[in-house]
C-alpha cells in the first residue's frame, strides 16, 4: 500500500434505508496518521459510513476504499487491517476481557498479545469480570483494547464515548487519548471518530468532517472548520493539529460555530434545490 495514499477514500457514496436517504454522494478521504472526527447530528449517517467501511453494509452507489482494499470484495483483509469500537460493547455477556481476546486473537494474524496485556494494564481493564458485569466505561475500554491489539492501520470509533456519564467519560478519554495515536510499530495510525461531542473533537481530533444531509459539508483542520480563534483562545495550540480543548469557553464557541456551519449547509442545500 502506498504510504501516502489515503487510508479511507469514499467517492460518491450513497446509501438509503427504505425511502430515507442517509448518504447522498458522499466524498471523503482520510490521510494516513490523522485523527479525524466525523461530526453530525443523530441519524446523519456517521455509523452507516463506518459500517460501510467495515463491509457489513453495502452502498447503493459510489466507491469506497479502506486500507487499500474494497470492503465488500476483500472484507476479510479490510477487517484484519481495521480496528473498530462500537458505541455499545457488543461482546458476549458471559465473556471476560481475556476470553474476548482469546476468541478474537486467532482471527487476526497481527494480534499482539503483549500489546493487549499492556493496554489492559494501562487502561485498568478488569480481566476476570464478564462484560455483563462491567461498567459501560470498562466495557468500552476493553473493546478499545480489542480493537487496538491487532495493530490496525485504521481505527474506527463509532461514538464510543456516548452514553457515558461525565466522570467515566473523562476517565476513559484521558486513558485512551494517548493510545489512539501511539502505534507500537512507529507508523502512523489513522483514526476516524464518529461523534457529535465537540469536547471529544477538541481533545483528540486533528481534523473534522461535518456530515450533513448525506454529504460531507465541511472537512478540514479542527481550527479551520470549528473556528481557530476560539480554539486557540482555549488551548493555545493554534496550528489546528492535535487540538486539545478542555475549557468550557472554547467548547461553547466551537458549538456556536458548528451550528453556523450546519445552518449554512442547510441554506445552501435549499438554494440548490
Amino acid at each position, binding site marked *: 500500500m502506498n504510504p501516502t495514499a489515503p487510508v479511507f477514500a469514499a467517492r460518491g457514496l450513497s446509501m438509503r434505508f427504505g425511502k430515507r436517504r442517509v448518504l447522498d454522494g458522499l466524498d471523503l478521504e482520510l490521510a494516513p496518521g490523522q485523527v479525524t472526527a466525523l461530526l453530525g447530528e443523530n441519524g446523519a449517517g456517521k455509523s452507516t459510513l463506518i459500517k460501510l467501511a467495515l463491509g457489513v*453494509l453495502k452502498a447503493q452507489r459510489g466507491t469506497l476504499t479502506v486500507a487499500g482494499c474494497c470492503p465488500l470484495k476483500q472484507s476479510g483483509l479490510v477487517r484484519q487491517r481495521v480496528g473498530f469500537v462500537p458505541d455499545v460493547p457488543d*461482546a458476549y455477556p*458471559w465473556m471476560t476481557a481475556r476470553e474476548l481476546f482469546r476468541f478474537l486473537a486467532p482471527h487476526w494474524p497481527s494480534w499482539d498479545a503483549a500489546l493487549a496485556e499492556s493496554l489492559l494494564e494501562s487502561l485498568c481493564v478488569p480481566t476476570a469480570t464478564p462484560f455483563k458485569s462491567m461498567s459501560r466505561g470498562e466495557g468500552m475500554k476493553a473493546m478499545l483494547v480489542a480493537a487496538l491489539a491487532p495493530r490496525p492501520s485504521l481505527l474506527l470509533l463509532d461514538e464510543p464515548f456516548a452514553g457515558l456519564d461525565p466522570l467515566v467519560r473523562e476517565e476513559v478519554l484521558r486513558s485512551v487519548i494517548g493510545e489512539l495515536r501511539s502505534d507500537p510499530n512507529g507508523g502512523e495510525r489513522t483514526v476516524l471518530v464518529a461523534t457529535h461531542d465537540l469536547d471529544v473533537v477538541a481533545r483528540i481530533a486533528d481534523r473534522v468532517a461535518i456530515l450533513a444531509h448525506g454529504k460531507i459539508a465541511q472537512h478540514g483542520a479542527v481550527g479551520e472548520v470549528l473556528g481557530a480563534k476560539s480554539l486557540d483562545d482555549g488551548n493555545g495550540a493554534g496550528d489546528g493539529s492535535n487540538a486539545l480543548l478542555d475549557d468550557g469557553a472554547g467548547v461553547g464557541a466551537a458549538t456556536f460555530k458548528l451550528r453556523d456551519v450546519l445552518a449554512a449547509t442547510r441554506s445552501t442545500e435549499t438554494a440548490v434545490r
Partner: protein
Amino acid sequence: MTPFAVLVWKEWRGERRSIATLAGAAALLPVMGLLGAREFAGRFGLQHYAYDGGTATIVAQAALLAVALSLGAELLPGESRRGSIALLRRLPCGLLRPYLAKFALLIAVALATALVAWASACAAVRATGGVWFPPLDFGVSLLRGVSDLLLIAAVGALAFMASAWIGRATLALPVALLAVALALTPFWLIHDDGRLLASAPTLVPLLWGAALLAPCVGALSFVVGRRRGGGELRSLAFGAGALALIALPVNGWRATRVAEWCSVDPQAESFRITDAIFGHALAANGRYAYLTVHHAFGDLVWSERRATRPEDWSYASNWGFPSDGPNHALQIDLADGSWREVGQPGDGVFVPQLGGVAQPTPFIALEPFDSSSDAAAERCVLLDANDGTERSREPSRSRLRPFTDRPERRELDRIFQTAFLPDGRRAWFHRGEWVTETADGTLRTLPDSSIGGDRIVLASGVGVWMPRAGGAASDDETVEIYDLARERRYERSTQAPKVIVRAGPWIVAGDSSQSPLQMAPPWKLYDPDRDVATPPPEAVANDTLLWIDDDGAALGGVADGNGRIAQLFRIDPERGTREAIALPAWVDAMGNCFYAMQAVARTRAGTPIVRLLFWTRHGGAIPLCARWDRERRELQFVGDASLSSRPVVGCPDEESLLVIDDERRLVRLRFGSDAREVVFPIPTSEGEASR
C-alpha cells in the same frame, strides 16, 4: 487455537450450562423413568415390561431429538437476541465459519448426549431386570432404527435451518414444518385419486435430502441473510428462496410421476400390452377388444425414458415389476383402431369367471392391481363390454357375490363356465349348480349337480370335477366327477384326474412312461356305469389322442419311429375309425408332446380355435393356430406362422383371430390366409403396418 476451533470453543463456552443440563437430564431421566415405571407397575399391579436394549435405543433417539430441538434451535437465534451478531459480522472470516462451528457443536453434543442417554438407559434396564442388549438383529429392526434416526436427523436439521429465520427457539420446529409443508404443497396436491402415495422408499430419499440440505439452506439463510446488516426477514427470504429452488425439482419429479401415472401413449417406446392371462377380453358383439397395458419404464435405457425411472409406484403395474408404470385399461374399437381409457389409471382388465380359453364376453371387470400387496383390491367396476358403459360397482372382484343374483351373472357363466354337450347345447355352472338351456330359452338344472358352493370347477370333456369342500387333498382316495352328458355323478378313484368324460365311454389315460411321445400317455376306454376299462379298438389302439372335441371325437395320430406324429387324424376312439386331416405342405410332423395341440379360443359361435405344434421339413418347431371346422373336418390355419405363438385375445368373428404381437401391437390374423393387420395402435407408417 485455529479460528474454527476458537469458534467452537466460543459456542461451547456460551452454551455449556445448557449442555450440562441436557447431559444431566440424559443421565438421570432414563433411570428415573424406568425405575419409576417399574415402581408404578408394581404398585398398581400392572404388567411390567421386560425392558431391553430396544428401550435404550428409543431413549437415545429421544435425547437426540431433545438436543436438536433445544440447543439446535437456540444457537442461531441467540446471536440476534444478544446483539452479538454484530461482533460475528466483523470477524475477518465472515459468518460461514461461525455457522459451521455452531453446527459442529450441535452434532457433537447431540451424539454425546445420545450416548449418555443410551448408557444410562442400559444401566436402568439392567437395574429393572431387563437385559443389557437385545439379540442382534440386522434385519427389520436395524432398518427401522436407521430410518428413525434419519427422521430425527431430518427434523433436527430442519429446526436448525428454521432457527436462522426467527428470533425464538421455540418457534423453530413449527416454522420448519410450516416451511416444508408450503414448499411441498404441490407434492401433496399433485396426485390422482390417492393411490399414488408417497411410500416409504420415496420418503427415505426425501428425509435424506432434508437432513443434508436443511443445514445448507440454514447456512445460506444465516451467512448471506445476515452478512450485511440483514435481519431475520432477510434470512427468511433467502431460506424460502432456497427451499423453493430445492422443492422445484422434487415437485417436478412428482408431477412427472403423476403424468406418467395418468398417461398412456401407445406410440411410446415403453408401451406394453400386458402379457397376462386375464388381462384381455373381447366384447361379445365382436366390436371392442379390452387390453391391459402399461409402460415398461424399467426396460428402457436412460436416454430413451420419457422421464426419470420411477422406483416405487405405490400401485405398481402388473405382475411384480415395480419399475413399470401402472396398469391402464383400454377399450379398442376394432373397426378403426381408435382407443380410449376405461376406468382409472391403475386399473387392469379382468374377465370374471374365466374358463381358460379366450371367448367373447358381454362384461368385463376393472380393478386396480397392486403387485406389492397380497390383499384383494377394494374396488371393482363392472363394464358392459359391448359398449364400455359401467354396469355396477362391486366391493371387490373376489367378492362378486351380489353380482351372482343379477342377470349378468348368467351370461357370464354361460360363456365362461361352459361345456359343450354332444348335441351342441351348452351346459354351465350357475349359482352352485349345472344348468342347460332348453329350446325355449329357459334353464334346466341338471340333477344332482350341486356342489353347494362357488368353487372353481374344472371341465374335462363333458365332465366336471366336483371338488370337495376345502379342496382336494393329496391323500384323497376318490374324486367325484359329474358327467354332463349322462347327467350323473360318479365317485372314482384318484386315477380319475386322467379321465376325459365323453358321451360314450370315457377315455382314461394310462402310464405315460410307456408312450413313445413325451407326456402323451396310452389310453383306454372306460364305462363309468359298469366301472370297467377296456382297450381301445385295435385300429386306433396305438394312436395318440392330442385333443378331444365337444362331440367326443379326438384329433391325434400314430407315433412314427422317431417318436413323432407324422399324420394328423380325426379319430373316433369308440368305433376305431380315423380320417386324415390335411396339413400344410411344409409340415414334417406334429410335435411330440401332449400339448402339441391345445384349444386357445372359441369364436362367438363356439367354434374351437386350436394351436398346434409342428416340426417343419427344414427342421425346427413352429406353432400354428387353426380353426377346427367340425362340419368339413378340416383345420383352417392362419397363414402367418410367426405370430401363432402369441397370446390370443379372441376371435371377433368366424374368420379372424386377434393376437398380441411383441407386447406392443394387437394384430388380426385371418384363417386360411396369410393376411395380417395391425389393429392397434394404428400404424403411423406403411413399414409399421406391414411389420
